[in-house]
């Protein structure tokens, strides 16, 4: 209890540099994982690809690599990174380590939208596939309903929001099941396939659009990393330490939902990435969002790209739903981490 310690007398050597060092180590190793995934996964598949031939533009290697595999890998990278960051954000904002990108019903809303598009046979809207547009609209309508229900007197309460999310989730799933019950066999198959989630090759212009959206939102979320630390402790904790809680929380919910909604509209719901990647990284790197958030993006991206490649080759030429693989690969790994470091979860 030295009341008379003076700041000036401290030498720089005694200043802990833990967070910046963890940041450097975390970012470098996550980036290495990402680059490894990006370099290897496009070359793996049911048909071997000759990289030299593909780069020389020779058929069919070039088509397989550049038209089928690379777009799919890039979409998996973007989707995995976005879902992992959305998971980090929802866990911090709801102060619930079990929250996922889908906790507030964004994915059930997207599913309901997609199912409506499938049943009404809406092929395209605004020059985009009808399922994407309806799923995205569904995601955002759901979010609006949940935030509307969770707001009282101009303030958002995490607890009410959680309850509203669970209720809206249940309602959307009920309507999806109801619609599916009355749909034709072909429609029913399309619905089940969508609900399983999966990464399909998309055009490069679509990829560029998603990359721009995900890039901007993730950059914003990273810029607010200090705020997520304080809000993860508590709203009044954050407020009394200088966070404009209502504004920052609204920004967080919007960012996480944009990421989830945009990705889910294209891939359908893909479970586990948003839960397991943030938790594994919290165990390895600690809970500081300045380190956690960018690493979650990089590792989430690599993780989903690897899982999707496994989904392609596991029972090739059949395509296993990627959600099955994320759970099968991630689950045991996560339990291993829990057993080793369970105390720190």
């Amino acid at each position, binding site marked *: *209890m030295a009341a008379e310690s003076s700041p000036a007398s401290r030498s720089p050597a005694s200043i802990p540099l833990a*967070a910046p060092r963890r940041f450097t180590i975390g970012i470098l190793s996550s980036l290495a994982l990402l680059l490894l995934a990006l370099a290897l996964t496009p070359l793996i598949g049911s048909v071997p690809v000759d990289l030299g031939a593909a780069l020389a533009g020779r058929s069919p290697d070039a088509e397989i690599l550049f038209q089928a595999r690379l777009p799919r890998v890039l979409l998996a990278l973007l989707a995995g990174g976005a879902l992992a960051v959305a998971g980090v954000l929802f866990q911090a904002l709801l102060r*619930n380590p079990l929250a996922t990108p889908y906790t507030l019903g964004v994915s059930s809303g997207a599913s309901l939208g997609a199912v409506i598009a499938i049943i009404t046979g809406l092929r395209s809207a605004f020059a985009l596939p009808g399922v994407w547009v309806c799923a995205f609209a569904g995601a955002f309508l759901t979010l609006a309903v949940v935030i509307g229900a969770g707001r009282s007197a101009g303030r958002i309460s995490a607890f009410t929001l959680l309850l509203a999310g669970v209720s809206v989730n249940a309602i959307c799933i009920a309507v999806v099941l109801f619609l599916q019950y009355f749909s034709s066999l072909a429609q029913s198959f399309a619905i089940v396939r969508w609900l399983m989630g999966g990464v399909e090759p998309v055009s490069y212009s679509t990829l560029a659009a998603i990359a721009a959206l995900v890039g901007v939102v993730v950059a914003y979320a990273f810029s607010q990393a200090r705020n997520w630390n304080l809000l993860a402790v508590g709203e009044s904790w954050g407020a009394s330490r200088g*966070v404009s809680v209502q504004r920052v929380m609204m920004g967080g919910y919007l960012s996480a939902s944009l990421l989830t909604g945009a990705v889910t509209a294209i891939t359908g719901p893909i479970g586990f990435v948003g839960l397991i990647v943030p938790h594994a990284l919290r165990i390895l790197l600690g*809970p500081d969002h300045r380190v956690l958030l960018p690493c979650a993006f990089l590792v989430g991206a690599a993780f989903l790209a690897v899982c999707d490649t496994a989904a392609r080759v596991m029972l090739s030429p059949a395509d296993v739903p990627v959600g099955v693989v994320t759970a099968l690969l991630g689950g045991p790994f996560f339990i291993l981490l829990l057993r080793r470091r369970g105390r720190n979860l």
Partner: protein
Amino acid sequence: MKAFALPAPAPSALAPERRTLYSLNGVGMRYGESTVLREVTLDLHAREAVAIVGPNGAGKSTLLQILAGLLPGHLGACQLNGIEVNRWPRRDFARAVGFIPQNVQMEFPFSVEEVVAMGRHAHAAGLFETAEDWAAVEDAMALADCAAFRHRDFRSLSGGERQRAILASALAQRPCILLLDEPTTWLDLRHQVEIHRVLNTLRDEGLLVVMVTHDLNLAAGFSDRVLVLERGRLAADGRPEEIFTEDLIERIFRVKATVHREAGAKPWMLYGR
């Protein structure tokens, strides 16, 4: 922005002036039908140690949270530096006011050091803490005696260790006002005495220290001024020597007590007779 900022007190400047920091006029709070606080009018000054006492449900914590700018819907006017507390930008406010809640429900494995460093948020410029931030964190941890468990998971701490870490986090803010909600509930005797001493030192350096407590002896020993709340009203406001009488304790707390007074010393109480 500049108009909001209160200069931090210089530790050496022992000027006798008692600058008015808070001005409360008819402050109250209503939750639906029930009024938990009504018509509180008073001023709080720099270099003042204030204890807020009263029975359960008297409105003590509510008043403290209004002072901390954490209850937006309050009635009346609660001004800090002439500006309504809820109209301050949160960042400027946090540089002036440190709030210490009773407890924090932690869900994530933040270390004590990380929790204390969160107190520097309002001073932050870049992504990570600067050398100046760490100096403030070190000082705060030394004052609240929590450097020994700085690397431990906050959730693994005992109640008293948590209170010391929370106090350190507010001290790291380097505020000129400290608001504490029962900061010594879980502390052992040595740390109660130490925290008490630290708070009085800070008061001597020019801070306004406001503490909610149930311990009347602590209130008497710690404070220059006691606010007694009863069913949401300000029942008494004065020096501990004037406030703590057998009559008042029986009237407000419904407990018979003997108050001991010696010349030049703070009063102390025995309950039950």
